[in-house]
């Protein structure tokens, strides 16, 4: 569905994407994970055939976006990061009008609009103006709109950024259904839980490059330990900095990360590690034992956290 090799994007002297290779197959759910500024959105805009490629090759549905942009855009669905709904039109009109851009007959678009409103649970809002919708509803409407042409490939740029946790779960549920229906999904996100829930395979991007690729579980297994013990200490415990504390416990874990507010101890058994820390006479004010996530993978690969 998407084949990129040595793909680059630059804006003047700034290189947003610095040569990436991506191969997304039909029916797959594929993710670009990375912090803001990693080059995810620039990549998505090139894949959506709205932003010219600066270097390398890119094929979408086997077509070249430089020459077949309209043909590609006719067959894909795009859910942009910022809503581009017409807020003064009704919910249903937004879908109907948009479907017409794809050259679909009016009757078919109307029927499709009703189906999609049902799918995103907005049927009772069909006649409401978009400006009266909540953020989560708007996002669901944008997703419905991106499906109006029955796309072979659906691109979602940060589909749940800015939504509250509940609204986010509703969106995830709908996207998961699409995935089960066999729609090829490509999404960008800086939420590791989103990537873990929705993608079969993902690439971790940082500073315009791909730093790792694989399934969420494989990436965690490869780049992190099974568990993480998080230790939070009081304000400069007995005058000791986090670095000093880290040195006292570094032999208890495979790896220790020092964050501004806590220490992360990467270990196979978090509870045991916490007990060992206490045995050393250290008294963290709070401890948390959890599974490793993609966040830990990212931290390991780049030395930075995903969400600042």
């Amino acid at each position, binding site marked *: 569905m998407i084949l990129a090799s040595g793909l680059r994007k630059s804006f003047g002297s700034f290189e947003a994407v610095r040569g990436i290779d991506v191969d997304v197959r039909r029916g797959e759910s594929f993710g670009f994970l990375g912090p803001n500024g990693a080059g995810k959105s620039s990549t998505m805009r090139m894949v959506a055939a709205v932003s010219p490629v600066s270097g390398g090759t890119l094929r979408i549905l086997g077509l070249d976006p430089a020459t077949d942009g309209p043909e590609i855009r006719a*067959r894909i669905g795009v859910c942009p990061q910022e809503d581009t709904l017409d807020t003064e039109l009704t919910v249903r009109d937004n879908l109907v*009008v948009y479907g017409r851009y*794809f*050259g679909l007959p009016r009757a078919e678009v109307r029927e499709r609009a009703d189906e999609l409103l049902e799918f995103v649970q907005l049927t009772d809002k069909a006649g409401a103006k978009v400006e009266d919708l909540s953020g989560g509803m708007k996002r669901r409407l944008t997703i419905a709109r991106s499906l109006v042409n029955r796309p072979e490939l659906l691109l979602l740029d940060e589909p749940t950024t800015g939504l509250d946790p509940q609204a986010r779960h509703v969106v995830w549920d709908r996207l998961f259904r699409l995935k089960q229906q066999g729609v090829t999904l490509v999404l960008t996100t800086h939420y590791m839980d989103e990537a873990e829930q929705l993608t079969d395979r993902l690439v971790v991007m940082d500073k315009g490059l791909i730093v790792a690729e694989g399934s969420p579980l494989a990436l965690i297994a490869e780049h992190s330990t099974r568990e993480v013990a998080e230790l939070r200490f009081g304000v400069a415990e007995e005058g000791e900095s986090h670095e000093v504390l880290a040195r006292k416990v570094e032999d208890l874990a495979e790896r220790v990360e020092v964050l501004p507010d806590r220490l992360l101890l990467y270990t196979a058994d978090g509870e045991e590690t916490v007990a060992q820390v206490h045995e050393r006479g250290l008294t963290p004010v709070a401890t948390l034992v959890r599974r490793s996530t993609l966040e830990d993978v990212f931290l390991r690969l780049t030395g930075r956290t995903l969400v600042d």
Partner: protein
Amino acid sequence: MTGTAPTNPFAGAARLTDYWATVYRRTWKGSAVSSFVSPLFYVVAMGVLLGGFIDADPDRLEGATSYLAFIAPGLLASQAMTTVFGETTYPVMSMVKWQRTYYSMTASPLSVGEVILSQLGFVVVRVAMSCGVFLLVMAPFGVFTSWTGALAAFPVQLLLALAFATPVLGLSAGLKDESPFALIYRLGLIPLFLFSGAFFPVANLDGWMQVLAKATPLWHGVDLTRMLTLGRLDWSMAAVHVLYLVALAALGWCWAVRRLTRRMVL
């Protein structure tokens, strides 16, 4: 059924018809009332009441036998211009920045050129409606010396609309925010309205002022409209007016497509 790419730019632009129709259905009442009422007010206030004080000498009024007959074509062309400014300033800013409607349009198979083409089509329809109403409102005042001339004046308004719409749309499409619009209205629209021969013969202006007035698109539109409604057509001058307006519309088109593409296709 999945989407298709349009086979030609006009077919692409036509796909946006439902969008414009939906937008217009929401706002038509306000614009229908104003396009009926404002010409009536102008014709009564300026043409009938103010014109009552003006001694109409056809030699000094470009052949008009009354001030009302002189000013009516000027007001018609000004109405066309005003409608264009209304449709291509704030609405364009909204579509490119506030609502980002253009971005949703170009995420579909449609291109920037097709989006602009459709918007120009909408502007022309809006001008056709407001100028059509204007002609009907003025008719009972007996301002048209020639009926065929009045009918011929109608398409001139559409050409004038395009000559204004393409450059103004291009200008709006590249602006960062809406603050220059106030200036464009005060230092663009209003001086054009007042000094381009709608209210007085530009021959009254001295030297360079007259040259400047005759360089404005509105003057070419007003003069051509007036020739037609007064039934005093000068073919060579009319050809100059048409060429000027066609050239401006064409140059404006290229500029608008380039500016909007530069802004949106990064």
